[in-house]
């Protein structure tokens, strides 16, 4: 009996049948927890850039393009870790189950969310998104004067320095 025990493999294969799937023609094995490509909801996104700072492979980037701020998602670099969705303060990023991303066109691998910008009240440079400013306003209950919100960080530094200067030395800023 021990000598021919290897024949038992036949009964195992009869019991198990065919394990492989004709994948493109049959549905793939994906559980409900599967992490595929991410989707950025352009309505909820405020363009704060938190996701771009945590993204380990730098698949998410944010930057100025003319008068707009653009959040770019490049699927080609994405490792599907879901950290962006984990840190997004607006819950604008969802992880989908999509994984069949092969394409002939490189452009298909890019996703963009375009934000209109706020121009600095003083220097006129676009520095952040309109939605981000509104969100900050909402979160801090309008405790910061409106005029300070629309000043870019650099000008704000100068402004603050001048204010302190005027208080200490008594020199008017103007």
């Amino acid at each position, binding site marked *: 009996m*021990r000598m021919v*025990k*290897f024949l*038992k*493999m036949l009964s*195992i*294969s009869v019991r*198990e049948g065919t*394990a492989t799937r004709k994948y493109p023609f049959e549905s793939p*094995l*994906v*559980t*409900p*927890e*599967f*992490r595929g490509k991410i989707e950025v909801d352009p309505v909820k996104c405020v363009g704060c850039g938190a996701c771009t*700072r*945590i*993204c*380990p*492979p730098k698949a998410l980037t944010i930057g100025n393009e003319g008068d707009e701020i653009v959040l770019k998602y490049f699927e080609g670099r994405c*490792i*599907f*870790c*879901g*950290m962006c969705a*984990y840190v997004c303060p607006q819950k604008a990023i969802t*992880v989908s189950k999509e994984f069949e991303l092969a394409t002939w066109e490189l452009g298909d691998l890019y996703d963009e969310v375009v934000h209109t910008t706020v121009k600095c009240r003083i220097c006129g440079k676009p520095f952040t998104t309109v939605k981000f400013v509104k969100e900050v306003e909402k979160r801090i209950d309008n405790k910061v004067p409106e005029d300070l919100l629309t000043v870019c960080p650099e000008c704000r530094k100068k402004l603050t320095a001048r204010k302190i200067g005027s208080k200490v030395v008594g020199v008017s800023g103007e």
Partner: protein
Amino acid sequence: MSHDYSKLIDELSRGHRSRAILSKILEVCGDSVLDLSRRNIIIKIVIKANCLRTALENIYKEHDLYLRTIAASDERSREGLFKLYYVFGIDSEGTNLVFEVPVAEGAKVDTISDLFRASDWYELEAHDLLGIEFNGRQMSRLVLPEDWPENLYPLRKEVSVEELKKMYQPQLISRVSELGVEEVVRIPVGPYHPALHEPEYFELYVRGEKVVDARYVGFMVHRGIEKLAESMKYDQVPFLAERICGICGFVHSTSYVQAVEDALGIEVPERAHFIRSIVLEVERLHSHLLWLGVALHLLGYDTGFMHAWRIREKVMVLAELLTGSRKTYGIDLVGGVKKDIDKDKIPRIKETLNVLRKEFKELVDVAMSVPQVKARLTGTGVLPRGEARAYSLVGPTVRGSGIARDVRKDYTYAAYHYVSFKVPVYTEGDNLARTLVRVDEVFESISIIEQLVDMMPGGPIKAERWEPQPMRLGIGAVEAPRGEVIHVVLTDLYGPYRWRVRAPTYQNLQAVPIMLKGVDLADAPLTIASIDPCFSCTDRAVIINLRSGSVKTLPIEVISRRVRENG
């Protein structure tokens, strides 16, 4: 004088073994020991470089003392020195003995490669990457390629990641202009593994069909991951760490986060420990099933291979259900985990484990009854116990040679101290012993997961907040399917200052030539695979167009299509 020491030693030692070692070190190197301290299981000895060898000469014969890793670090910006951290383990006590050795620029350190043979590669690597010189041994290139410029040490802080990225491509362009052609395709062809198809190279010296000697050449695809991590933030590194290995990535990310948690004293919630342990064991299940399949394939028993992988598929689906991904689970963060295991998944886990236990037992019974499998595993690739000890080997490789070394027991971490499990040990040291260790471990892992799932406490899965501090040393070790993984982290404000990774294969590979001596040529692939080697596999071809000066990296398949289109 000795009176003072004995009080200090009492305070620091964690058992009679460490007491004996400490007193011996203080006896021979009393004046050269700059500092002695202990934190949890780490005893740190700051010692002058000139006395390190003397100290180790006196203790290297101590039982169950072995070299775990050596980390070299460039701390010139802070203290004007390089530093070497020698991490030794005392198995029976679960103590880490760390020798911190300050090395001034240009100074030489005495080698210890004759005392601890495993240190051979560590010393060469420290020289390659940081330019630390060692006395009394032959130095040669190990990690870096042959044509790497002299005196450029990539892990030194003054060398930036961007600079290194540019390193290779200009050389290619000059090569192309030398050849005087416009477009050249460089396709790296092999050295690859006879079984796992990975970049490694063995030279077998054969007489008839018997292997009489073997030589290993490795590090074909050194990726500079440690350097890259120095430019990343704490919570980004786990994802990089996970990509060190395509089969057992989670052990690396867990090792890294444990090292950071150890260094910064972060309290990790119990539930997170349980989740990590469960996922680690799921990973071991899949890895051992994968290995068994490959081993059976090498023995020509492809039916066993297919069925091993059919069973493994159930583990892969389970892993995806628990973590969201079949591999590279991506749930480890410093201070906890990202994804919880919900209650409603527990029945599914248990169901899978029951099926797995039954089917795996059946498969192993059948496979071991195949005459060729048994005949070719027994007595081939023998690794004697003494050699296993001398090379500080780890994992199933060492356990197949009669040494019960297992990080889960010896330096317990995560939630392993809550569960009861056996460490399977076989004394024969042949390929069969290493196979049986893994087979037994599968059953142990199934039992561990069942126990953990039953005991899982509630509560948060991640520490609320933690404060990074500069220059703290932390050690994180995990028992990977192939053996012990150990990471050493020196912290900085935003990310690791220095991150030293040591994979189990680094240790085990050095002993493969011993196993290969005297085996038949036909058994060489199996013997090499019996340590379950794990290399990286990222070789790609580079196309250079001289006219435009552009350098494109393409997968090989794309090139073959282009060639066909052109031709």
